């Protein structure tokens, strides 16, 4: 079960916005997101392409291009990190705060051996000697259950399968005993059996240690299998946030409920039509009028088209932004 101490959260964002200037206005990728991740908690962040889920956490990591205008606040272990200079940020980025990306081939350097890429993290952040760093790197590969780790250290990324590469990335993200690992679609480029292995691995490495995880995915099924709590994002905002079991059982926002129906579930009987969400979310450049989901929502009324619902508490652990929630 999640430990929910009164102590300060590992990550706390307040009203984070990400805007891009475009000809004739701005495109709003993230429209004000406040969330917190407690120590040892796994927060799932779900949304479709363009919902702003990746932009939000790239902003937190300080990885957005200089064209992005970021406002709001993000505190990591009590320290404000939005707007920190890169050299300041690099004290924590890559050591206490790490990120695992979707495509493990793109996030490893193709011309460096796996062992060097792992070791340099420790040499850089910890001032370790190369010899010690390589020993720790070996343990890291062992920890993410890579068979024959000694041989793997001497190999290049292209010699590893996609699943193996993602294990290396996870091992790398854990090298400096982080407080928070942000995993952005870590299994989306992998097939179903490897996906299951990676999710198992994340669950197991987490069980042994105290770090928190943010798991970002478009697939509620993936998120639900690991997260303690889920935040559903739509058009740059959180529209519902609840403990996973509660959300899966009793989704309140019509969007969450529709996303649930789209989750692959082999135990459901075969149906004639496969459920899907018709239409598209409004683009980032479109001005906000009312609820962004209203045009696709089966429950929307006139009110929804001009009055934007605020994210409000339903109980101590859940929030929803909807005028007509399902319950």
């Amino acid at each position, binding site marked *: 079960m999640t430990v929910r101490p009164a102590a300060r959260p590992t990550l706390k964002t307040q009203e984070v916005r990400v805007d891009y200037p475009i000809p004739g206005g701005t495109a709003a990728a993230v429209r004000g997101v406040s969330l917190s991740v407690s120590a040892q908690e796994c927060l799932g962040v779900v949304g479709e392409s363009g919902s702003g889920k990746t932009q939000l956490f790239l902003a937190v990591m300080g990885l957005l291009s200089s064209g992005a205008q970021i406002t709001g606040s993000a505190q990591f272990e009590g320290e404000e990190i939005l707007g920190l200079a890169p050299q300041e940020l690099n004290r924590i980025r890559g050591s206490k705060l790490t990120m695992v990306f979707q495509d493990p081939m793109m996030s490893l350097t193709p011309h460096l051996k796996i062992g060097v890429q792992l070791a340099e993290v420790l040499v850089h952040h910890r001032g370790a000697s190369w010899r010690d760093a390589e020993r720790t790197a070996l343990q890291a590969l062992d920890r993410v259950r890579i068979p024959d780790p000694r041989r793997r250290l001497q190999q290049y990324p292209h010699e590893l399968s*996609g699943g193996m590469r993602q294990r290396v990335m996870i091992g790398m993200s854990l090298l400096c005993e982080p407080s928070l690992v942000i995993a952005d679609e870590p299994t989306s480029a992998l097939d179903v059996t490897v996906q299951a292995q990676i999710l198992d691995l994340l669950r197991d490495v987490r069980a042994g240690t105290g770090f928190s995880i943010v798991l970002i995915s478009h697939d509620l*099924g993936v998120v639900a299998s690991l997260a303690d709590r889920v935040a559903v994002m739509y058009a740059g905002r959180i529209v519902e946030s609840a403990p996973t079991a509660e959300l899966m059982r009793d989704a309140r926002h019509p969007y969450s409920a529709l996303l649930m129906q789209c989750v692959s579930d082999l135990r459901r009987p075969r149906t004639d039509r*496969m459920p*899907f969400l018709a239409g598209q979310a409004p683009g980032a450049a479109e001005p906000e009028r009312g609820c962004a989901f209203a045009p696709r929502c089966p429950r929307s009324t006139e009110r929804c088209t001009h009055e934007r619902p605020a994210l409000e508490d339903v109980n101590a652990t859940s929030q929803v932004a909807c005028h007509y929630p399902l319950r």
Partner: protein
Amino acid sequence: MSEPLLDVRGLGVDYRGFRALGDVSFEIRAGETLGLVGESGSGKSTLARALLRLIPASRGQILWRGSDLLRCDSATLRRHRRDLQIVFQDPVASLNPRMTVAQALAEPLRVFEPNLREVERRARTARMLERVGFAASMLDRYPHELSGGQCQRVGIARAMMLDPKLLICDEPVSSLDVSIQGQIVNLLVDLQRELGTAMLFISHNLAVVRHLSHRVAVIHEGNLIESADCDALFSTPVHPHTRALLAAVPDPIGRRPTKSAAT
């Protein structure tokens, strides 16, 4: 039973001595959907490409309505090719970024029906566009103006322009959000019902394969290890590897730990 549309016998592909595809045999009948499932590297895409002779086969026969595609002359191959179309995994990369939707859809007609009058070509393009659920205003859009799901609908429309007898779909929904995969799957099912197109549907997504396949074949390390009617395969899988594939699908509601059985 009617004679199969496609009868593949002992098809194999070697890449510099590596057996990507061992010895694969199967049939597809007119109007039938064969689902092909397997992990990355199992040979799924190699099989799709070898069937269309996009890569050379090393052995075996591909009997298309009785004639062997691996041994026919280029004129015959070209004639058959209009009946065999493919939809690729990456919907954006499979469209030419410099062609509008209208141009992309007209391209197959330009190649295979060069004498068609412009008016007729436009009419058929517009009809197909409507068929995949787009308004006529989409005709002048470029791929970068479309979402991934929209691009894939254009890819499907383009493949259907010549009214093919067999449509090969190589992971057509894997790069799309789960929330819109259903739209693409439903579209393929509808097209098949209306036009009687046979399909080879390749995917590692078992829920999708179950949804639209009549029969399912499982490929592992370049060989078919199990093949059965769709319902039978999912209710009583026989091969241990098939069982492992089924067990790996996350179970969101029960929150069953997804302890992976496969290696």
